[in-house]
């Protein structure tokens, strides 16, 4: 009961906080985005509480979260942005969400590894102490803040641990994949065909053994996959519709991704940079959100510097400084892209990112050929002969066939981002012992971050000729048609049947 109540509380918090922008993306968006955004809000409040030294207690967190939710709802009412009918519809989803989560918590199929235990124990330690005390500070260097703060609620509210958290996160990965595919293909008036197309991708994802396992496995990887999908998918939506309502979930997703694991600030920054590279312009609003993103990460990194001390195994103080430099560097690039006189810099960001990562991979491979070869081989063996079933064969086949499709005008940042993240995973192998052939291998699990987004990419890529273009040619106004239309029209000769125009 505690789990169901807590998760529902986060759902309500997410509904309240996201209403301002999610309402513009549709009711489905509000429902799908609520829990991830509520979870992020909980974590953010927890980070601030621990960081500035306020006692981290059950009452303190409940009161703060409640006040934040009430404040958000009050603001919506004052701005007349929450009509009664919509409020009732959203309120009706709350018991439905609770009932679904309650059913899920009836069984405990949680899977554990050593990491799972460690995450839970550090999380429980934070809640038990109510502060970063003793060796907990040192142990923060091994994990991202998100899972620690999220699972600490179990101790705060008197339940052993959140065994249903992974299933809930997995359900949101599936829901997001379906919604994003449909929304990107169908626009605001998405229909059942768009949803069915998204469902096809989701079923393919959900049939993979390794993915099913992560529905029950307590770790950081499925949440990282969720927030990468949320962040990059919404970024794609922003590129297509150029509506600012897409931007808050982009930056919330990016910050949540960055807080999942010690290395995830890097892919978060890479994807954000690539997103900017593809935009027509970077707005002041986006720059402010970039400041917010950087502030959250730098704040947590300062907390780490204060507490982790020496002798850490994963994040040392020097690595924390490096991560801080990367985040501040991103902020500098965002500022340059926003400033009109240096805005043309954007065009170089995409090739520069790919080039830098490719050259780094080449240099590291040449400097430690045996080490890197072992890593590459292990990654390949894990993906193609491991527990992924046909998943990466499917991706390979789709990648080859997609070469025959006309290119979309927007979405390059997703494909470049996926390639960059792959290179980054290989590069990370340089700084540690080589990746190994086993399911629990770090790189093998990190590829889970990529799979949902990869399927979204191909679902949209293959769906546009059938669903996207046909729908947009049916007399919709140009503003709603989005930027796919430009790309498809460029590719289609006038003699084609209307259904393909």
């Amino acid at each position, binding site marked *: 009961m505690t789990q169901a109540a807590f998760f529902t509380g986060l759902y309500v918090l997410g509904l309240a906080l996201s209403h301002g922008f999610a309402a513009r993306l549709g009711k489905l968006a509000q429902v799908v985005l609520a829990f991830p955004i509520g979870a992020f809000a909980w974590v953010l409040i927890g980070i601030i509480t621990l960081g500035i030294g306020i006692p981290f207690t059950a009452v303190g967190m409940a009161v703060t979260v409640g006040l934040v939710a009430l404040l958000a709802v009050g603001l919506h009412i004052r701005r007349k942005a929450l009509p009664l009918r919509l409020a009732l519809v959203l309120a009706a989803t709350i018991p439905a969400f609770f009932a679904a989560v309650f059913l899920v918590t009836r069984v405990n199929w949680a899977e554990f590894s050593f990491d799972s235990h460690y995450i839970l124990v550090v999380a429980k330690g934070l809640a038990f102490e109510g502060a970063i005390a003793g060796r907990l500070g040192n142990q923060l260097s091994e994990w991202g803040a998100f899972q620690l703060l999220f699972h600490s609620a179990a101790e705060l509210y008197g339940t052993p641990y959140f065994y249903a958290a992974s299933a809930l996160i997995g359900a949101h990965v599936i829901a997001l994949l379906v919604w994003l595919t449909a929304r990107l293909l169908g626009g605001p008036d998405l229909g059942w065909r768009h949803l069915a197309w998204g469902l096809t991708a989701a079923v393919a994802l959900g049939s993979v*053994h390794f993915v099913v396992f992560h529905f029950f496995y307590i770790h950081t990887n499925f949440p990282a996959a969720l927030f990468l999908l949320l962040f990059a998918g919404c970024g794609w939506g922003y590129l297509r519709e150029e509506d600012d309502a897409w931007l808050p979930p982009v930056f919330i997703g990016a910050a949540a991704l960055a807080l999942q694991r010690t290395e995830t600030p890097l892919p978060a920054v890479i994807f954000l940079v690539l997103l900017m590279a593809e935009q027509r312009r970077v707005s002041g609003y986006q720059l402010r959100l970039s400041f917010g993103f950087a502030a959250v990460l730098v704040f947590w990194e300062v907390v780490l510097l204060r507490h982790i001390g020496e002798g850490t195994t994963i994040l040392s103080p020097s690595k924390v400084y490096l991560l801080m430099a990367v985040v501040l560097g991103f902020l500098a690039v965002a500022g340059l892209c926003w400033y009109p006189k240096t805005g043309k810099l954007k065009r170089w960001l995409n090739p520069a990112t790919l080039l830098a990562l490719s050259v780094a991979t080449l240099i590291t491979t040449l400097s430690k050929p045996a080490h890197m070869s072992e890593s590459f081989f292990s990654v390949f063996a894990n993906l193609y002969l491991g527990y992924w079933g046909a998943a990466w064969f499917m991706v390979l086949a789709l990648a080859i066939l997609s070469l025959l499709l006309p290119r979309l005008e927007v979405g390059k940042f997703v494909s470049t981002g996926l390639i960059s993240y792959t290179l980054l995973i290989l590069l990370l192998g340089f700084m540690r012992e080589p990746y190994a052939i086993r399911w629990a291998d770090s790189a093998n699990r990190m590829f889970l971050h990529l799979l949902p987004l990869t399927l979204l990419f191909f679902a949209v890529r293959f769906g546009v000729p059938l669903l996207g273009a046909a729908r947009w040619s049916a007399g919709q106004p140009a503003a709603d048609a989005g930027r796919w239309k430009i790309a498809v029209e460029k590719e289609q000769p006038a003699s084609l049947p209307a259904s393909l125009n």
Partner: protein
Amino acid sequence: VHEPEVWLRVSLPVSRAIKAVSVLLLIVSAIVMIRAWPVIGPTTMQQRLFAGVAAVVVAVFVVASLRRQYRLRVIAWSFPVICAASVVINLNLVDFNWKVLPLTRRADDTLYGAAKENAHPLISKDLAFYYWLGTKLEGRELVYTPETRKYFDLLLIRSVTRLTPVAVDALPALPPGRVEGLLARPVETMYDGTPVRVVQDPSAKRYVLILHEGVLVFAPQDPG
């Protein structure tokens, strides 16, 4: 090069030989695939890979040679087809008898079994993992060494800030559902091979980890 359409327009008319080779590959791959069927007998991994690659090459050329409007449609529909094929393989809906290329795994010999093999034997799932850990440790003599340290850290992490020695008879007073670390000295000083014993306190349904100079108690809220 950047535009697939250009590449296809240039390459397809270049030579009818390409199409001839494609057809040849199709025939060869069909033969290999037929050979691969379990009724005939298992084939080698190389044969299967060759057949797979040949099938992809042929499929690409066949699709590319279609008229543009059909080509786009066929390629677009290949997405659900490929997804469906992937689902069929992943869920073992059809037994391909892939012994050499283990694309699929069955329930018992797959991930879950492998997870248990690869993971430390102390690690599994249960209602309260401290309790579970207790059941696994019960009656064992374990030595606290740098190698086993991390597993003990799971139990001791909360104890390091509590260094007050406590008598064993104080145990029943501890509240259930809590993990209380009661050590006589810091964990860091225990790499000297301190023997550790785990016993059960049946009256309180708790497990007691007896260390060198102190005890660590862990108990679930719901032992059942």
